[in-house]
């Protein structure tokens, strides 16, 4: 059994690499083409982001996001043992009211609950060349072989300086004001597991492969 299990992990990594080649992107974070997304039941909207994580394809569909923030409470409960949306690795609440940019003169028609009602769920892209890890003065952000290659913060090395937060183009790694340690997404997918509308969806690589193969793409 253990041999089989190892093989399937390798298989997934192959699928991920091929998937990235297929989508023509050199980094993990990709906005997928409409035709590609439609294969995974995501319609043709421009509003869907797809992120190739080590564990599977994470789909974040802002049209389906209702801003309930259950992803945030679950993420912090599972990873930190307390409920603290601020340090959740997936971010919804900070954009809830006025979108990514904050209130503007045209707030009534801009993103957010006070505007056009569109949410902006933000998820880690697990970049191949991670800005957060490259910038960390302590080299505390590394690829974790025990965690399917996801970039994780080594808490014992972290000094809570916040360089990772600033370096990340999306400011996703967050320093916990209570522990002074940074943390970031481990690509565990629990946020998607609990999303009450499937706005966050983690599709395992085995399923991605099967779907793509069925539709004439060759992977892995």
């Amino acid at each position, binding site marked *: 059994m253990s041999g089989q299990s190892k093989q399937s992990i390798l298989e997934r990594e192959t699928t991920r690499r091929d998937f990235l080649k297929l989508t023509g992107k050199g980094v993990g974070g990709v906005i997928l083409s409409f035709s590609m997304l439609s294969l995974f039941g995501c*319609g*043709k*909207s*421009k*509003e869907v982001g797809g992120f190739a994580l080590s564990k599977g394809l994470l789909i974040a569909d802002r*049209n*389906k*996001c*209702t*801003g*309930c*923030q*259950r992803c945030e*409470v*679950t993420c*912090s*409960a*599972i*990873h*930190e*043992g*307390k*409920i*603290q*949306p*601020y*340090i959740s690795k997936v971010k919804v*609440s*900070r*954009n*809830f*009211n*006025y*979108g990514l*940019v*904050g*209130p503007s003169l045209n*707030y*009534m*028609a801009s993103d957010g*609950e*006070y*505007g*056009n*009602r*569109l949410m902006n769920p933000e998820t880690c892209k697990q970049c191949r060349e991670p800005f957060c890890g490259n910038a960390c003065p302590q080299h505390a952000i590394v690829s974790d072989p025990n965690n399917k290659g996801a970039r994780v913060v080594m808490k014992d090395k972290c000094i809570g300086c916040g360089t990772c937060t600033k370096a990340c183009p999306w400011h996703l790694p967050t320093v916990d*004001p*209570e522990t002074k340690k940074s943390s970031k997404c481990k690509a565990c997918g*629990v946020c998607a*597991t*609990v*999303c*009450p*509308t*499937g706005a966050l*969806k983690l599709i395992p690589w085995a399923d991605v492969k099967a779907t793509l193969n069925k539709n004439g793409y060759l992977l892995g």
Partner: protein
Amino acid sequence: MAKLGGWTGKILRVNLTTGVFTYEDTSKYKNLVGGMGIGYKIMFDEVKAGTKAFDPANKMIFATGPLTGSGVPCSSRTNITSLLPSNPYNAVSDSHMGGNFAAVMKYAGYDAIIIEGVSKKPVYLNIKDAKVTLEDASFVWGQGIYNSTAQIASRVGKEACIAAIGQAGENMVNLSVIMNGHSHSAGGHGGIMGSKKLKAIAISGTGSVKMAGTGEEWYNLNQYMLKGIIGANNQHVVPSTPQPWAEYNNKGSRWTAKKGLTWGAANEPIETGECNATDQNKIGYRTMKSTFDFGDVAEKYTVRMGGCQSCPIRCHSEMDIPNLEKFGVSRYASNTCMGYFSPFGVMFNGVKDQFEKGDAKMIGGTLGSQLADDYGVWCNYGNIGRDLKYAYESGTLKKVIPAEEYDSIPWDKLMNGDPSFLIDFYKRVALKIGEFSHMGDGSYWLAKRWKFGQEFWDSHDVGLWSPLGFPKHHSSEAGAQVGAILSCMFNRDAQSHTHMNFIGSGLPINVQKSIAKEKWGSETALDAPLNYTPMNEYKAKFAKWSVIRNCLHDSLTLCNWMWPMTTSPLKSRNYRGDTALESKFLSLVTGEKISEVQLDLAGERIFTLHRALTVKQMGTTDMRGKHDLMCAWVFDMDPDKKAFTPGTIKMDRADMVIALTMFYKEMGWDEKTGAPTRATLERLSLKDVADQLDKLKLLP
């Protein structure tokens, strides 16, 4: 020894007169749980009997509880306690709001915020974790809630959750709200903030709600609830249409998702589809509220559903109706239930279809809700429209409003079903323009001022439950004497949904009755709709359980529009929910083992404290004669029918006397007066309350 989670342990006291902030330990209120319990104790201890709502000596308490922000489903409820200006005695009441505010308050580090004193100039309270400041609010004073919120957010940061009042609150209109998150309003206390010159509270928090249990335990208990116990809005547990997975269906259910029904205004329409009871990734689609509230026409204007932090049930409809801009409001609208129905009710002669067939209700509701929400006008649970109808049709308005003012009101719009009447209506009420603006005083004061006849009170169409001026809210139509008793208990419309969620679950009556037998000792605790029987002790137990759970939820805080989980959508559970779930979550989060029975005792304590507070403020123990009153229609409606015959909800006077006696007995209150006894207060660890009532000669 497990660490104690749940509470932050800190209460912020803001004195607006001195500008001084002080901090108190929450632990002294621990046996009152939180939220409503904290609010009542502070009001009992600190606000003298006879104080009026807008007096500087009145206080207001924004309070959360140990489960607020803990990620327990449906747990971001803010409980606001203060004197209520629309009540004839200005007796204490609660108003509640969902949204994000309560959870963020916890993350900022506060279980409660006490507001006292009066500021000299308009201010807003700005809280960023431990940093608290009072800021000048002159730049938004006079503005509506939407713009005020955006303006304040542009100064304090986009993450801040802002609870604000509109012009109605500023002008101390009795019927005014406090609102956060665009559509989450607490009705009745907006004017208290206005009287204190407090425009808003902006709050952002980066901290945590601690829990004693592990993340995995928390996750597992959540999964247990989400994959087989939680239903749709109001804990309706069967779908409204036949579906392959469901044994039952019920047209009245809010589990309205079905094949082919979409959020039609999403960038790409999203199908709600059939939502199997165990599929947690579809819980948010179960309640398609827009078509439930407005009819089929609303489907294509639905962007999505929305709601409160941590709640998977999305009960607010988020709409995009471009034609709304023709009325000078945003094309986007959000609300639910009474937020939409009450403006439509103001248009008592109906609204004509505006742009397409069947859109009258939707346009009236979405236009009116934006106006009411922005001005911050409350509706007294929908009665403002029925007050208007009576005043107009009885000819009172023509008598009491000066001719020039009367002629300036666009009555033709009202009578012709033109919803733009609402633009004029809410403006007059919120800005206190002329005599007509007394519509915002609330039914009791309005009837007194305009000398309404007795028929105003006696009429089922007007719908007032109590001579104290508040309307029916899941009253005798909901569980006969059970709903009737609950409606007599508070100082405003009862906001108790415990019984209504159970009665409205959608399950067949025989299944409901079998659950009633397990919970309250007999199937006769519950009557079938429109087929009532005389009072019995099991109904008294059902009523008691309903109200103490209601108080418990407003203290923990959990949403009583969803909790308790009396039923389940699963046949494999025999449709039984889990009424111990609150205590399981509380034990897990706080680390202190507490049983369902112990927690219910805390609920009983909180509700009895409310009763003591009412006795104190009204200066009488005669609750039966002065407080627990019902309007005549309750007993005199359907003149051709007798009470307890099929087809009517008519009640019987002598039976309701018995009903109250049985309920008082269950509560351990004096059976003659309905006032709490010393023995009961002491049994509930409220000796200090008993001592104070004793001093005031207010013990039975």
